[in-house]
């Protein structure tokens, strides 16, 4: 008997009881849709983390000043800037694991250009800023050495600033006013997109010296800076360097090992790991649901197939009397249970896609659809159909023709 004939006969008997077939596959439906959602959440989170590492630059630590909360009284954020360029030089000198440091001062202010207003954040830094944070230039260039040294009024702007001040026109060589000080635009950064926290492209970068002289002289007097982005030469050294920086800074700022520091070291990896961890927990939860429902679904199929075999005992006898071999009967029932589980697989995939779409729309989560998960679902559901369908099918095929025929 050929496979197409077997499939024809199987679908005939499944269609005679559609409701039962679909209800039987319910466990598989839930299982498969959980598998798909689970994999999608997992790979979505992983992708997001990878993208963000890509955006911020891997192996970066952020060192920023922090008002010390001595005797339980906070001095308020941003009120004291204790980091200095001297600290930066000392760190660079003492810790060979540090490959580069980008200093940073910043302010939020109103920008005027082209008759338009825009409120954005202005960063004063060096060219290391572009390297360490993986910024690429869509147009124009970085700062030149003498621009940095002289404190020239030049600026590099992000995509969002361009869009709001110049539309789609090239901003190069245009003049913008930051705090009424005119700056010439020399570069446009490539878009990085938004994160959960901020629009990264909403930025203006000027040379550190210019910023200190013209924009934030009062806020950051002398060689004070707001923060620095520290690039560590390899990921393995990240944690050790973080500790070394802490020790070093305590020494420089004369803070005892257990005293309250006036700085804080942020590690993006930690931050992203937390995000990854929460999606991992979610995935484990879904994997548990998927596993349980696939097993329960399989047992459901086995149960219904056993009922079906009993119900159709006489029919099996008739088939045997006209020449069906054991193998024919075995295959027919196996194909029936396989079809039930594949129907479940199909519906489960549809449901899973619906859930993925819904969740990513509603919660704005990143869910990436992994095609291997579709293949995996098929493999899962069909193997469950075969594994749990085998016992009933074998029971049917081992019936004695005359006993089956006489069964009432």
């Amino acid at each position: 008997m050929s496979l197409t004939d077997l499939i024809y006969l199987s679908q005939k008997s499944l269609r005679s009881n559609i409701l039962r077939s679909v209800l039987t596959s319910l466990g598989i439906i839930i299982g498969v849709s959980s598998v798909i959602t689970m994999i999608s959440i997992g790979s979505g989170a992983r992708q997001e983390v990878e993208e963000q590492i890509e955006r911020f630059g891997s192996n970066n630590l952020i060192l920023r000043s922090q008002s010390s909360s001595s005797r339980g009284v906070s001095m308020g954020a941003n009120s004291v800037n204790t980091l200095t360029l001297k600290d930066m030089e000392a760190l660079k000198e003492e810790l060979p694991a540090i490959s580069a440091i980008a200093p940073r001062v910043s302010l939020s202010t109103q920008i005027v250009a082209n008759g338009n207003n825009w409120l954005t954040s202005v960063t004063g830094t060096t060219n290391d800023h572009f390297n360490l944070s993986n910024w690429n230039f869509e147009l124009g260039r970085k700062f030149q050495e003498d621009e940095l040294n002289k404190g020239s009024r030049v600026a590099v702007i992000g995509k969002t600033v361009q869009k709001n001040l110049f539309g789609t026109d090239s901003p190069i060589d245009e003049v913008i006013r930051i705090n009424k000080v005119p700056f010439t635009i020399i570069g446009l950064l490539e878009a990085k997109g938004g994160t959960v926290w901020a629009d990264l492209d909403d930025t203006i970068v000027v040379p550190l010296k210019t910023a200190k002289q013209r924009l934030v002289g009062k806020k950051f007097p002398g060689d004070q800076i707001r923060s620095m982005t520290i690039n560590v030469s390899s990921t393995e050294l990240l944690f050790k360097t973080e500790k070394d920086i802490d020790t070093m800074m305590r020494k420089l700022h004369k803070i005892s090992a257990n005293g309250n520091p006036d700085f804080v070291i942020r590690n993006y990896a930690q931050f992203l790991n937390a995000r990854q961890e929460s999606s991992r927990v979610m995935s484990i939860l879904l994997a548990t649901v998927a596993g349980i429902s696939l097993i329960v679904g399989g047992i459901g199929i086995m149960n219904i197939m056993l009922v079906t075999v009993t119900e159709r005992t006489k029919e099996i006898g008739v088939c045997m009397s006209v020449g069906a071999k054991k193998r024919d009967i075995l295959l027919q029932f196996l194909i029936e249970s396989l079809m039930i589980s594949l129907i479940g697989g199909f519906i489960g995939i549809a449901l899973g896609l619906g859930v993925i779409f819904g969740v990513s729309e509603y919660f704005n989560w990143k869910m990436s659809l992994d095609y291997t998960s579709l293949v995996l679902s098929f493999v899962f559901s069909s193997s469950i159909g075969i594994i749990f369908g085998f016992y009933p099918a074998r029971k049917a095929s081992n019936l004695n023709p005359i006993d089956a025929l006489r069964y009432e």
Partner: protein
Amino acid sequence: MIKINSLSKEYVMGDNKLLALNDVTITINKGEFVSIMGSSGSGKSTLMNIIGCLDVPSSGDYFFRDNNISSYNSNKLAELRNKDIGFVFQNFNLLPRLNALENVILPLLYSGKNLKERNKLALEALEGVGLSDRINHRPNQLSGGQQQRVSIARAIAGSPKLILADEPTGALDSKTSLEIMKILNDLNSKGITIVLVTHENDIAKYGSRIIKMKDGKIIEDKKNVTN
């Protein structure tokens, strides 16, 4: 065609042993129309099931066309039922989900004939029993006589050497019974050996030879002179 030597069949029911066939020896030649008669429990159905390879004897030998069936495994028995034997049952035993044509095709599916050939054979068989206009009807859309004719078509579609009919008219009225017996008679005159089990004299008399059974033994075996 069929040679049976001191065949016995024993059923064990709890502590009781029931001897359904007790040392039966019989020979059926090619082209014969044999009616087996007897009251219920006489062993006539058991004998027929063994002849049809649906059941196996407890002891004794069974030769079908000079082959010793006792040594056959279930696959070879299935093949024999498929190619050489056609069954007609009292309650038709058609598959309710399949239409008349599909029911007739069923044995041809198992013999692995291709689509074109099996459709042709099935249509011919249905035509042979006068049901060409009912091929798409399901069993529950057919009368008893029509259903039995479908089951005869199913029995003959694979051109068997032997047809076994177990009370084929048991569920039919007398007029329809006559039609069915006429079809069987025609098949016999085309050279197909027929073994018929019945307890009705009127039906048994269609046979060219009548065997009477009682308590698992053959008590009478003679040519039917009235025919």
